[in-house]
């Protein structure tokens, strides 16, 4: 299947592994990309944790979606850079994996994920266990061939309401077809939670930009996700209503927003997101 193990696979190689306990690895961000969202660095850390937990369960189960707490964003990622990954598995059983993760470039933090929970679901429903085992052997050995990850499609987003200092509502149209669905996941395509986060960050930045008289030279960026949860799968072709509500001023040049994503009225994602104004970037 075209795109399997490339279109949304963000661990090229695992360099250290204690199955079910911890792992280190990396992902070479291809130089040909137009950009690499910071939320994908969190995805890469989560994928490393998934490998470290799936091998312990003989690839019969895999973590899908889940919750994250205290996800901190550091420096941005540029195409051509190597993203070093590490994870610690805090607990693992047939119901869930709990882990922390870090992604860095030359020692500088890109993301620090303090705590995440991934519910375990039967692998058969999402991917071939045998194909996953073979992929695992590859990335634990010589590593996957680099440069195969391509840009994901730009979000099809329309802002329908923007009230500065209060809220923003937007419509996100999930593509019916996209290469990344062949990788996430081949047997059951699911819109990745980290892509939803990326869309939420994009619209929260617009709300933040119109809500304060930011000093000249200020660059707005996501700085913290205190809480985020995917409550249901979002399939291809779905329309997602995004809502961003101002929650509080969380510090100097920082605004906290409450995020919600709904599909046909049902909340599929909830969370908090902090946007920070950084001067001199």
């Amino acid at each position, binding site marked *: 299947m075209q795109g399997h193990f490339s279109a949304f696979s963000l661990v090229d190689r695992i360099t250290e592994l204690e199955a079910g306990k911890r792992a280190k690895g990396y992902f070479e961000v291809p130089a040909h990309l137009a950009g690499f969202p910071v939320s994908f660095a969190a995805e890469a850390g989560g994928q490393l944790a998934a490998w470290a937990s799936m091998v312990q369960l003989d690839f019969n189960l895999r973590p899908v979606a889940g919750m994250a707490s205290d996800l901190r964003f550091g420096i941005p990622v540029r195409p051509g850079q190597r993203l070093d990954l590490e994870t610690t598995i805090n607990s693992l059983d047939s*119901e*869930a994996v709990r882990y922390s993760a870090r992604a860095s470039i030359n020692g500088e933090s890109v993301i620090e994920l303090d705590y995440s929970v991934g519910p375990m679901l039967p692998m058969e429903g999402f991917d071939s266990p045998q194909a996953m085992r073979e992929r695992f052997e590859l990335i634990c050995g010589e590593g996957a061939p680099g440069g195969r990850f391509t840009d994901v499609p730009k979000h099809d987003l329309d802002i329908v309401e923007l009230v500065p200092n209060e809220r923003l509502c937007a419509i996100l149209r999930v593509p019916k077809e996209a290469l990344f669905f062949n990788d996430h996941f081949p047997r059951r395509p699911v819109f990745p939670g980290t892509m939803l986060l990326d869309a939420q960050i994009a619209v929260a930045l617009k709300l933040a930009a119109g809500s304060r008289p930011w000093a000249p030279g200020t660059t707005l960026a996501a700085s913290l996700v205190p809480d985020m949860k995917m409550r249901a799968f979002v399939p291809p072709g779905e329309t997602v209503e995004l809502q961003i509500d101002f929650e509080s001023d969380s510090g100097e040049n920082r605004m906290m927003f409450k995020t919600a994503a709904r599909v046909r009225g049902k909340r599929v994602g909830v969370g908090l997101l902090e946007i920070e104004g950084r001067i001199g970037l």
Partner: protein
Amino acid sequence: MSQDEIKKEEILEVFPTVAKTIADALGCDVDDVKLNVSLIEGLDAESIDFLDLVFRLERSFKLKIPRGKIVEDSRGDLSEAEFEQKGIVTPAGMERLRTFLSEVPADRFSTPMKAADIPRLFTAETFCKLVIRARRAGASAA
């Protein structure tokens, strides 16, 4: 007092923290979390919310809640086969459930009940009791 007996004042003592934790997990207003509210039918909880909630309760109360603890405790002394047959809760299982989930109004125990539907019965009080039992288990293990 038997290990199973839980006093109202114990429930009321943990309820404010449990209610806040439920509100955080479900993204709802804490004022909507009443002691007798059904988390699924009243607060739109999903199965992943229960997993999230248990982890949050562990962190809020600094205790360990074994996975599947509510379901395991629901069965009590009954074996799995005595509790459910082909996914349907047996009459003995229903009797045990009514005792264990004494906070749930009798008319919500519909029969036949699928074992998978047991979480539909859970209320905020169910999770207060879960915390109290986990505290007791932690205290007796120490």
